[in-house]
């Protein structure tokens, strides 16, 4: 694999040519927010929080899906990028019903964290307050559409890591919903292995273990890289 050099915020850095910008930026210790990106599954480029300015490109590019290129010059925290990230967060908070005070992931939520990090202290947009339901038909997990940000982490992990593809997205636009099977109650979906990966990778309180009360649902997704590295490097073939 060849090595390329590029500038990130005017610092000269080198990277492997198969790397994506996000990885290189984070390697430099630069904190750049993401919500749909998840180490271990394919990238979507949907949350647009990791947008960066690349000199010579008229468009802002999502760092998670942009391959590095020799001689690139990248800026990660220009005034407009920070402003846009904040607005995107505001849009997400306005879309469904994110009432932190009564949420199972209060205090452990990536959406809540990014909002605080980016300084979103209020939302200028109208709260859309859609009437959405909650699927508690599964024996162990609950899916609350009101807290979903449609990042599709659960869909990707179910397909790419677990291989069940129980989850997908139905509809489109703001009417999109995470579905289980043929949009049947989750508990009735025979393809679900109840592995719980979707719950662990969900950045908000949309997926949680039954029985969790306010602030009790902590997520972890470090196991993903463990599983995937193990598979890829055949570490478990003893």
């Amino acid at each position, binding site marked *: 694999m060849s090595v390329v050099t590029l500038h990130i915020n005017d610092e000269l850095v080198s990277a492997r040519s198969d790397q994506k910008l996000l990885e290189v930026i984070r390697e430099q210790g630069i904190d750049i927010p993401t919500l749909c990106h998840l180490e271990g599954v394919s990238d979507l480029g949907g949350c647009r929080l990791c947008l960066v300015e690349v000199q010579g490109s008229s468009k802002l590019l999502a760092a998670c899906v942009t391959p590095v290129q020799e001689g690139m010059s990248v800026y990660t925290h220009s005034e407009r990028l920070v402003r846009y990230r904040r607005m995107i967060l505001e849009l997400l*908070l306005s879309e469904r*019903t994110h*009432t*932190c*005070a009564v949420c199972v992931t209060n205090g452990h939520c990536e959406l*809540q964290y990014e*909002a605080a990090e980016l300084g979103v*202290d209020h*939302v200028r947009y109208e709260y859309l307050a859609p009437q959405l339901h909650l699927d508690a038909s599964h024996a162990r997990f609950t899916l609350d559409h009101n807290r979903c940000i449609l990042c599709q982490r659960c869909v990707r992990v179910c397909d790419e890591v677990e291989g069940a593809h129980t989850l997908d997205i139905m509809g489109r636009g703001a009417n999109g919903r995470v579905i289980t099977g043929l949009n049947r109650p989750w508990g009735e979906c025979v393809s679900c292995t109840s592995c719980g990966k979707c719950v662990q990778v969900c950045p908000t309180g949309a997926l949680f273990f039954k029985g969790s009360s306010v602030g009790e649902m902590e997520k972890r997704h470090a196991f993903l890289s463990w599983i995937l590295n193990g598979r890829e490097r055949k570490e478990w073939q003893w």
Partner: protein
Amino acid sequence: MTQLVTGKKTRFATAWLGGCSGCHMSLLDLDERLIELFQAADLLYSPIADIKEFPRQVDVTLVEGAVANVDHLELARQIRERSHIVVSFGDCAVTGNVTSLRNRLEVDDLLSMVYREGPGREPRGREGDGILPALIPRVLPLHQVIAVDAFIPGCPPDPDTIWEAVSALLHGAPVRLKQEMRYFG
């Protein structure tokens, strides 16, 4: 803000719209810092003081709660007209929070569900029409009704967070909360 700089006492008010008063409880949890606060400020209006009219001139008003009915609208309008700085105090004022969970229902359905047809109740008819303040169709965070100058998130905001914001305001400085004090919820 000139008064603040010249060392006069800040004319201070707190108001309570559609909320649980938890933010005010948290304000009282400032404990001994309350003494410091009221050495620098006069409390001109507050649910914890028995004052009926919102005063003519206020420097800083903290507003707890979301705007949920016509009385809130009227008070919000007065607060804005008569205060130099208006602060959204706590998640209900900032986001609508729990108060706004009713937005998914039509007002009339909500009233029927809770009052007119609630279990174990006598049907009460169109209660409150003209007596209780009418509910507005959608609960709104304060800044969607009037201009707001600063925001203190939290449900309720931590006393330290409140103190951070209030002491900045008493010094005529803008509210710049640290990241750990900016969390909703």
